[in-house]
Every structure is written in structure tokens, then in C-alpha cells.
């Protein structure tokens, strides 16, 4: 490993890394705009100029690879002068819209100005170049050309990552501006990423702008549930509401990016249709009740049926939207508590959903299909359940996170499952299946729980609770633990880490893993690991 000395500190840096990365390893920040580890190096912003001993000119850190014995100064007089100079140049034609700019608070121009410049402007306000503002470039991206620092991150993203090249830089000199080609717009399933990588407020998200000042937002690391890729994300929320998702770097899963479908997936989690109390059928209506009566009612129906028709008169459908822990808990309840083998899974994607592509998107819109398989649950099995209903063997169905009515259509659902005695649905929203249920138990959506998903590559990734579920909704594993208790009086773990531990004991695929040790990048299922 080459040894470099940065600001007097000797650093072992892996071969091939640049000075920005090497400095970062030692906790030294070299400010930069155009450099992005997921894109090619253009070296145009000049913010990263540093003094490298033996080089006559200052060198751009982004384009300087470490070499053994290199001595670098990031705080020398010459470096500081260059940093101040670049910031002064950047601000000459900058509109300084901070009070009305959505980027304020997470803007690299603001931040670096405070950290590296902090001097009064020598450029008269009235002489700034005027360019386009609030331009809707398409795909939910808004462009402000005056705020742009022309770092070419956005253009490189469309050139190098999506290969669609919708944005380009036009004109020359200080008339340069980012724009779309005449008559064309950004039309791209990954467009939101340019908003993330834009270091300033030049590119903002149409849906997010003016909705929340970023300094009020809390960030919780999580996993996108939009498809079986399971991109690592950060959930940004405030007082129990999500305002945006952003991709979180995970080299094993999504790199630096996420798709727009996933990015814009969260409003579905905070719809009016969210369930906030257990419901029970009262003639042709569902009426709310408390958890205790709800679980008592359900337990007695189950026990009655078991006694009268045997354990296999009770069945369960586990949707691939369920977490590993939820699926394990319900499987455990069915097999071990009730002794029923009638468990099916559902991994359903709506018609017309996007297919696999070369970057991230997967046709399977379920985050945990692979996790259900790793738990030894059958893929599908709905037909067997329907046959058992038809044969009069299956009487009670527990449905967790699977909207069977939407999936099958009402007619088909009634044809297959209409003869059931009783159906209970555990879900987040009052969907069509709930309308057909005898009982509904409200459960937490994934930003509201601890847990894990296993993506299609077999990588187990961790969810963190951003905020508690609404109303009386409970994490599904807690609801199932309470149901178990109501059934047999026994105690069951209801914390995700404990359910995970139980699962790691019982299931070969999860052996040796713990929820806590998954880490930000997740970990591979046992058997996939070398």
C-alpha cells in the first residue's frame, strides 16, 4: 500500500485511490464539487486543488492518484488561497437564493463558503448573469441554471450510468448552462439521482421542493421495498411523515443510485387508507375494536376450527412484502403452534409494472421473495389452498401482506376462497381483500419497524424504525406474538432482533447471522457466503 502524508499525517492508501479518498480515510476533508465516486473524473470545478510537494502547480486531488512518498498539504497558504479563489469565482454569478432555495441546509456552496471562504463579495450584485429558473426538465426534475456550478455531475450521470444523455451543457464561458436538447425532455426512470448528486440547488425534486426545510428532517437508513433489488436507502422524515427517499451507497446492491419508482414509493405508505385500529365484520361493515377483543375473537375462531376440523383447517398466505421476521413468525405459528402445513406465499407484481433492466429495476416488485424461499416456504401454493377450500378442508385463512382480491380479481377470489368460514387479514392498508375479511389487523409499514429483507441476490438487509406506526397499528411480529399468546398462553419474542435470532437458529439460510451484525451493506445468506 502506498504511504502518503497528508497534512503531516501518514496514511496507508490502497493503490489507485485519489487524494480525496485517501484524505477521507484519515478524516481530512478535501472540498470538491465535480468529483463523484460513481462517475468519471472531469476535474472541472477546481475546488479540490491541493499542494503536492515537488509539483510546481497546485494539483486537483480528484485526478491525483496516491503515490508512495507523496506529501500533500490541504491547509497550506497556497491551498487556502486557491479554495477561497474558486469559491469567489463560483459565487460571482451565483444568485444566492438561499432563503427560497430548497438546497439550503445541504448545499455544498453554502457549506464550503462557510468552511473555506467566508469573505465579503467583491462582485457587484447587479452585474450577475441571468439564466433560466424553475425550468421543468421532465421526470419530476426542476432546473435552476443560475444556481448551477457546472460540475457536470448530472450530465455525466445520464451519459455514463443511464446512457441516455438527456442533459448537456450548452454555450461557452460564463454563459454555459445545463439544459435539455431542443424539443426533448428528461424521460428517465433514474432521473431523481441527478437531484441527489447535484451539489447545489440547481436540480431539485418537483415533489419535494417547498415542502420541508431539510434541517427539520431526520434520516433513517432503510431498504427500498419497491422491488426485489432492495436498494439501500435513507428515509427522510419529520413527525411521522416521510418527505423523501434517497439512495444510500451500497456497493453490493445499488451502488450510489436508486430508481424513481422506488424513490417515489413512500406516499403509498401514508395514504388515507392506512389502518389504525383492528376491525371486525359487523354485517356488511367493518367496525373498529381494540387489540385484546380482536385477538381473543380470532384465537377462539382458530381454536374452534382446529378442534372441529383439525389443524389443517387453518391456512395462511404470506405475501413477499413481509419481512424475514414476519414471515418466520407466521410460519412458526402455523407449523409449530397450530400444527398446520397449509402455508402459501404470494409474490405478486401488478400488470404493466416495469421489467428487469440493466441498472437496478427488477420485474418482481416484492422486496422479500428470496427471503420467503430461504425460509423454506413454498413458492406460491395458492392453488393448493383453493383446492382445500373447495374440498371443504380449509376453513380459516390468515392473510399477511397479500392483497389477494386485487391480485386475482374479485370474481376469481370469490370462486376460489368464497367458501371459507373465516378470513383474517394483517395489512397496512384497507385494501380490497380487507373488505372481504371477517377481521382485519392493522400492522406497521416497513419504515415503522425493525427487521430485514432478503434481496434477489440473497443479501439480507436491515430495516430501521424511522417512527412508530400510526394509531393502534402494531409491528406484525408483535401482532403475531400476541396472537400466539392468545392461542396457547405462551410468550414469544416480539422484538425483531429476537425473532431474527430464533430464525437464525431454526433456518439454515440465516444461520450465523444476527440482525445487529448485518451492517449497513447487509450480509449474504448462509450458503452463499464462501
Amino acid at each position: 500500500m502506498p504511504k502518503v502524508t497528508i497534512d503531516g499525517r501518514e496514511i496507508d492508501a490502497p493503490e489507485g485511490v485519489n487524494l480525496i479518498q485517501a484524505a477521507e480515510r484519515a478524516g481530512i476533508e478535501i472540498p470538491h464539487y465535480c468529483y463523484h465516486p460513481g462517475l468519471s473524473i472531469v476535474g472541472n470545478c477546481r475546488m479540490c486543488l491541493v499542494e503536492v510537494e515537488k509539483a510546481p502547480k497546485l494539483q486537483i486531488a480528484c485526478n491525483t492518484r496516491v503515490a508512495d512518498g507523496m506529501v500533500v498539504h490541504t491547509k497550506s497558504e497556497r491551498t487556502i488561497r486557491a479554495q477561497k479563489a474558486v469559491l469567489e469565482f463560483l459565487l460571482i454569478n451565483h444568485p444566492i437564493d438561499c432563503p427560497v432555495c430548497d438546497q439550503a441546509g445541504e448545499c455544498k456552496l453554502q457549506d464550503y463558503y462557510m468552511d473555506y471562504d467566508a469573505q465579503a463579495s467583491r462582485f457587484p450584485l447587479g452585474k450577475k448573469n441571468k439564466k433560466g429558473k424553475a425550468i421543468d426538465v421532465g421526470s419530476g426534475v426542476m432546473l435552476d441554471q443560475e444556481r448551477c456550478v457546472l460540475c457536470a455531475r448530472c450530465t455525466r450521470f445520464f451519459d455514463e450510468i443511464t446512457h441516455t444523455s438527456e442533459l448537456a451543457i450548452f454555450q461557452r464561458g460564463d454563459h454555459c448552462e445545463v439544459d435539455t436538447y431542443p424539443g426533448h425532455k428528461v424521460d428517465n426512470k433514474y432521473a431523481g439521482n441527478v437531484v441527489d448528486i447535484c451539489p447545489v440547488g440547481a436540480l431539485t425534486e418537483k415533489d419535494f421542493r417547498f415542502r420541508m426545510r431539510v434541517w427539520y428532517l431526520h434520516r433513517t437508513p432503510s431498504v427500498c421495498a419497491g422491488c426485489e433489488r432492495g436498494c439501500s436507502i435513507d428515509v427522510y422524515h419529520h413527525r411521522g411523515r416521510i418527505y423523501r427517499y434517497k439512495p444510500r451507497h451500497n456497493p453490493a446492491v445499488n451502488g450510489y443510485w436508486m430508481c424513481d419508482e422506488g424513490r417515489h414509493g413512500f406516499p403509498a405508505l401514508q395514504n388515507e387508507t392506512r389502518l389504525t385500529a383492528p376491525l371486525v365484520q359487523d354485517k356488511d361493515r367493518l367496525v373498529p375494536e381494540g387489540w385484546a377483543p380482536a385477538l381473543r375473537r380470532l384465537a377462539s375462531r382458530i381454536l374452534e376450527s382446529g378442534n372441529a376440523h383439525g389443524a389443517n383447517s387453518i391456512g395462511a398466505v404470506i405475501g413477499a412484502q413481509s419481512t424475514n421476521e414476519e414471515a418466520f413468525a407466521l410460519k412458526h405459528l402455523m407449523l409449530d403452534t397450530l400444527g398446520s402445513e397449509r402455508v402459501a406465499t404470494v409474490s405478486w407484481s401488478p400488470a404493466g409494472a416495469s421489467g428487469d433492466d440493466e441498472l437496478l429495476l427488477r420485474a418482481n416488485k416484492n422486496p422479500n421473495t428470496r427471503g420467503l424461499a430461504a425460509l423454506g416456504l413454498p413458492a406460491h401454493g395458492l392453488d393448493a389452498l383453493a383446492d382445500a377450500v373447495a374440498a371443504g378442508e380449509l376453513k380459516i385463512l390468515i392473510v399477511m401482506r397479500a392483497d389477494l382480491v386485487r391480485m386475482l380479481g374479485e370474481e376469481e377470489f370469490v370462486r376460489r376462497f368464497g367458501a371459507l368460514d373465516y378470513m383474517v387479514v394483517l395489512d397496512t392498508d384497507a385494501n380490497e381483500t380487507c373488505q372481504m375479511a371477517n377481521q382485519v389487523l392493522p400492522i406497521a409499514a416497513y419504515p415503522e419497524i425493525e427487521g430485514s429483507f432478503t434481496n434477489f441476490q440473497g443479501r439480507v438487509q436491515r430495516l430501521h424504525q424511522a417512527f412508530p406506526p400510526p394509531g393502534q397499528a402494531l409491528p406484525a411480529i408483535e401482532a403475531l406474538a400476541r396472537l400466539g399468546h392468545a392461542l396457547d398462553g405462551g410468550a414469544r419474542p416480539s422484538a425483531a432482533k429476537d425473532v431474527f435470532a430464533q430464525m437464525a437458529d431454526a433456518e439454515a439460510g440465516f444461520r450465523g447471522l444476527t440482525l445487529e451484525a448485518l451492517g449497513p451493506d447487509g450480509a449474504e445468506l448462509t450458503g452463499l457466503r464462501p
Partner: protein
Amino acid sequence: MERILTRWLDIPDLRRLDVYEAHGGYKALRKALFDMKPEEIINEVKASNLRGRGGAAFPTGVKWSFIPKDSKKPVYVCCNADESEPGTFANRYQLENDPHGIIEGILITCRAVGAHTCYVYLRGEFNLQKRRLDEAIAEARAKGYVGPDVMGSGFGVEIYTHRGAGAYICGEETGLLESLEGKRAYPRNRPPFPAIQGAFGCPTVVNNVETLTNVPHIITRGADWYKSIGPEKSPGPKLFCLSGHVNKPGLYELPMGYPLKDLIYEVGGGILGGKKLKGVIPGGSSFPVFTAEEAVKVAMDFDSVRAAGSLMGTAGVMVMNEDTCMVDALKTIAHFYHHESCGQCTPCREGCGWIEKLLTDLEAGRGRMEDLEILIDAATNMEGNTVCVLADSLSMPVKSFVPKYRDEFEAHVRLGRCPFRDVHGEPAEKSHAAAAAAR
């Protein structure tokens, strides 16, 4: 002195292949192909101390020797005919009048570095020049000098001509390569240098038209002959583009090291209107200005001009007489670089515009004394901090004009107008004439 690079002045129709050959044309190529190994060509050019005429004065043979000898990728030669430096107009005459001299230089260079393809990048406005060059290439191809088997040697060279769309930055060698590849002419960060990763990611030599036209003469007459012209470290015949306030502006071929004073007063016939000399930019607009006192002491070769505090660049000598408003002159220069900055890197993109705005205000009498310091500061902050040296090309004039003609800059601030104009904004000279007429 014998004319070497401007033989068309002595030989009518030199641009025609038969005439060119009748005057010894393509003998150097024959020699390079059949009597010399590529290594020997490079060594001869190295020994000649030929230095690049495109502006940077880099030793040509040394540049060629950077091309990897066992390159697995093809090697390219690019002839830089983008000639856009203000006050520079040598290549255009060469293209019009001596295209075979350029082609022969290209072919020998290709042989030396093992290239089978040369791209000639011409500035967008070079319509006639491209036609002349294309005609000459067609003639040479018909004769078997360009094509798959040059002179039956088994060595093939194809030459393509490409016209830019009119941007100064396309002359910067890496901007040229980007443009050639069909992209925006954004200069590249170095390393990698073109010799390792040039056109299409392959080893590439970029040489100026004039540089290449020296090559056949060096091959025919030898490095020692070449070095005997002018100073040994910066030798050779040189094309000087003389413009501005001289009686006989134009293109002159003179030996390197020729006194600037003689260029202006002898060759150029002295200052227009018998006025006094105020300043000279010796190398195109990109370099520090010489005051009259400095100018008359300078010899025009790369090292002497550098020693005197400027650079010879393209040898575009721009002469300014005593009536020139130096604030206005610098403003005009700033306007050019502001207009031509590719806008890629921050200091140049923003600095050039800032400097032009400051100078516009100063020239119009709206400036402040502190603007002079800001000018120097902004110029200093651009210098050396950018991807290419276009930023330095404005920085150097600013940092020489302001201190050398500081009294003029200050007068603009003090008077609140240009001292070379009257209160109505008319040039002072004109208003004198008007006043005389009124009397």
C-alpha cells in the same frame, strides 16, 4: 536571407504537386522512407532543436519520442491548423500556398512515430484553406504519396481533413482531440498526455502546421544546418505575423532571434503615422505586453523573449502606438478570452467574465481604484489553477498591462472617462480634427 517556409513568394504555383516536386518537393519523404529508420528521423529532429510553433515551444523531437514504441493501439498524428490566436495568420498562408510542404511534413512525422492516420484539424473559417489542402492531398494520393503504400515503401498513411465550427479552444491540443472525437471541445486534464492517450484513447502527436513544415527541410539538409539558423537552442526560420500600428503589417519569414526593433522599424516600415511606439505583444494576445523600452531590446526567439519577461507564443507581433488606450486594448483582449473560454473550469469560466466586466467599467470611466487590485487578484487566482492554459492567456496580459500602464488605468478612474476620448466619448484625435475644422 533564403526563404525556406515562404518559398511560394519566389515560386509561383508552388501549391501544385508538379511545381512542388520540380523544386525538390517530396525528396525528404523519399529519404525518410528509404534511407532512414523511424528512430533516426526522431533523432535528427531532436538534434535540430526544432520547437513547436503552436505556442508552447515544446521540443518537437522530444514530443515524438514520448510515443510508445511498441504500442498495441494505433498511433495518430494530428496537424493543428486551428490557428485562432489573435494576431496570428501564418498557417493560413501556408495552407493556401504550400499545402504539399505540410503534407510532406505530416508524412515524415507519421513515419517517425509509426502512425498510419493523420487528422488535420482546420479552424471553421478555413474554407479556401481546406479546399487547397484537400486538392493537394488528392494530388498526392493520385501519385501514391498518400494512401496504403506511400511511394511503394509498404508504409501506408491516410490523411483526413476536419473543419471545426469556430472556437478558439479547439486549437488547444486536447480540446482539439475532443472535438475531433465529435465531442464538445473541453480540454482534458493531464496526465494522461496525448502521447499516451490522445485521439480515441490512442497515442497521438499533435503538431502545429508551421512546426510540421520545418520537418522536410531538417530531413533534407540536416540538423546542423537547421541549428545554424538563429540561436542554437531556439533555431530555425520563423514566420512572424506583424500587425497593429506599423506601416507594413504582414507575414514575414525571418531567422529566429531577429531583433524585435528591426522587425517593427525595418521590416515593418516603422510606426503608422510616424507616431511613438507604446507597447508590443510579441506572441499573440495571450502573453505579457512589452513596453516600448522593453520591446526594442528583445530578440525574437523563444528563450530571449522568455528571458525578457514574455513569451513568443505564435509570434503574432501586435504593435500599439501612443494613441492606443491600453485599458481599451486590454478590454478587447479580455472580451476575446471571455468569449472563447470553454466554460469548463471554474476559475477561467468565471474569471474571464469578471475581468471583462471590470475592464468595461474602467474603460467607460465607471471604475474604482480598488478594481485595479481586484483585476490583478482575479488574474492571479486564475493562473495555473485551470484545466488548460487559456486562463493564463488572459491572466498574463492583465498582470502585465495593469502595472506597466498603471497611470492610464488610474487616469480612467480619476477622470471618470477614457483620456483618449473627449467628454462626448469621441476618440480624442477625431475631436481635435473637429475642433480644428470648426476653427
